[in-house]
């Protein structure tokens, strides 16, 4: 027989109380775990989205930087255009390796979904060397490339014809983009010229993706680009910074909620263990009378507390993993800006940190009840009725 088994068995004496305390801990740790997973997932998917841009910086028409951030990552409607001349001018600037004009706009489809239409040319495809397109890119002006998943959803395959609401004539699906796991899986790709025609913006582009010969010269290029009238340059680190700023206030709020939840669950454990110590005053007196030292009693109660929080923590982590998808969805609705990858991403390290937090919680919240128990007198067992 070991201290461990005595402590464990004791927890089964008040099943209801133990169960409720476990739930408190599980909720607290689940929140902590989800929060850490979310932070990790958010950062990862944001970076991934940015890498997937394939460019070092973008030039867009002057406007709201927040709107621009969201547009760059998610697509959207931009009212102010740049021109083909802008593309040409930027292409001539020193240190610029390539400048590719892209056209982006959105259409509302009959099923109520807003789809973003991307106008690309061959140079734009070159920015995304990792793309795997089944079939062909564009064969003519009436070609369309669809993400594979979207095509499956729409019941389309290579060679199918497809029409866009409000646009005369039909398109032929010439290529399917294999799943990239990024925001690119949400767009419809048309030849640049076709996209410009559909939205009556011939010769106009919404953004210019710029790659540099030497990334350390990025500030010089920013200056040159912004010397053009009504053009602003956005570097990828600016996009990252803007997205992070949008997140900071939300994060501060979530942090305090998680801290409160964890604190409350710690108080719950302390209360529960303290109550069980008071109920067992005489029994603990007996243990001391039959040879338990202060340290023995302290250890017994402490082990109970740690067992409780570790078990609760494991339940919480399990529940958080199981509910990951739900949490992802719920957060997506709450956030000012959400990247396209998995918002909730956990790894072994987050599991370990959550378990360590559970252990710490047990150690801290069990210390006082354990101390109180250790100070009980062995005379409690004899004290006459």
């Amino acid at each position, binding site marked *: *027989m*070991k*201290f461990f088994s*005595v402590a464990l*068995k*004791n927890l*089964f*004496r008040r099943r209801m109380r133990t169960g409720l305390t476990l739930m408190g801990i599980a909720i607290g740790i689940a929140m902590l775990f989800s929060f850490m997973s979310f932070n990790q997932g958010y950062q990862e998917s944001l970076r991934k989205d940015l890498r997937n841009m394939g460019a070092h910086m973008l030039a867009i028409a002057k406007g709201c930087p927040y709107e621009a951030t969201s547009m760059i990552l998610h697509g959207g409607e931009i009212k102010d255009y740049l021109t083909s001349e802008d593309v040409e001018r930027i292409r001539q600037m020193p240190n610029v390796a390539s400048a590719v004009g892209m056209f982006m706009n959105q259409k509302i489809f009959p099923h109520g979904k807003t789809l973003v239409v991307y106008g690309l040319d061959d140079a734009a495809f070159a920015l995304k060397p990792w793309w795997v397109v089944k079939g062909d890119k564009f064969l003519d002006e009436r070609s369309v490339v669809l993400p594979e998943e979207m095509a499956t959803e729409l019941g389309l395959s290579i060679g199918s014809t497809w029409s866009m609401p409000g646009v005369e004539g039909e398109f032929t699906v010439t290529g399917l983009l294999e799943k990239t796991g990024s925001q690119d899986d949400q767009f419809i790709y048309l030849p640049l010229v076709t996209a410009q025609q559909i939205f009556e913006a011939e010769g106009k582009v919404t953004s210019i993706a710029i790659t540099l010969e030497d990334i350390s010269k990025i500030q010089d290029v920013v200056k040159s680009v912004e010397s053009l009238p009504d053009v602003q340059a956005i570097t990828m680190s600016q996009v990252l910074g803007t997205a992070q700023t949008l997140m900071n206030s939300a994060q501060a709020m979530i942090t305090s909620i998680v801290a409160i939840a964890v604190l409350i669950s710690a108080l719950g454990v302390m209360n529960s263990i303290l109550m069980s110590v008071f109920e067992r005053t*005489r*029994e603990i007196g*007996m*243990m*001391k*009378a*039959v*040879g*338990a*030292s*202060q340290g*023995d009693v302290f250890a017994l109660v402490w082990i109970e507390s740690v067992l409780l929080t570790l078990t609760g923590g494991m339940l919480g982590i399990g529940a958080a993993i199981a509910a990951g998808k739900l949490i992802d969805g719920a957060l997506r609705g709450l956030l000012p800006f959400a990247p396209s990858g998995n918002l909730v991403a956990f790894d072994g390290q987050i599991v370990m940190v959550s378990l360590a937090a559970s252990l710490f919680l047990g150690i801290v919240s069990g210390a006082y009840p354990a101390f109180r128990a250790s100070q009980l*007198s*062995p*005379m409690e*067992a*004899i*004290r*006459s*009725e």
Partner: protein
Amino acid sequence: MAYIIKAENLSKSYKRGSETVYALQEANLVINAGEFISIVGPSGSGKTTFMNMLGCLDTPSSGGYLLNGTQIAGLKERDLVKVRQENIGFVFQQFYLLPTLTVKENVELPLLFQNKGLNRSKEILETVGLSHRYTHLPKELSGGEMQRVAIARALINSPKILLADEPTGNLDTKNSEKVITLFRELHRLGLTIIMVTHNPELARIADRIITMTDGRIKTA
């Protein structure tokens, strides 16, 4: 015969406001090894305080207490634990068996708190007549059986003295008799037994009766 316990002017006092209350006043008592002693007296007479002193659960305010050659007065709790482990087995009125542990585990509980290799729980449970209850839980036992398990627990450390606080206080006549028979048997085997009770009839089975009133020993 060699004495195992020697109390000299043993006193325990408390402050209550400005006055000093004596729970135990200048008790003198010598108990020989192998004796069976009863301590009787009405409530408030100081029996419990005296028992706490003898059992090394509490230290005296003044006076001396020699237990098996060790001076107990002035010892710290850490040392008292050792003295208890090595010398004394306790039997309580309320049994205090842990409900989640089996009979065997309850009997072995004191071993948890010391590094003693020897485990005689099987043998001891045979002595108290409960070897067939080895794996049962306390709730499956009668009151008498519970007290016999508690006695087995008191014996697991091979104590020199068995201290019993109203051991039959919670038992009916039939079960009380079984416990008393067991005490007699243990006494016959050479164990020193000190039993506190307010039941005069029970007290009479002892070799010697100590009567207490108002914190003093009346008859020695």
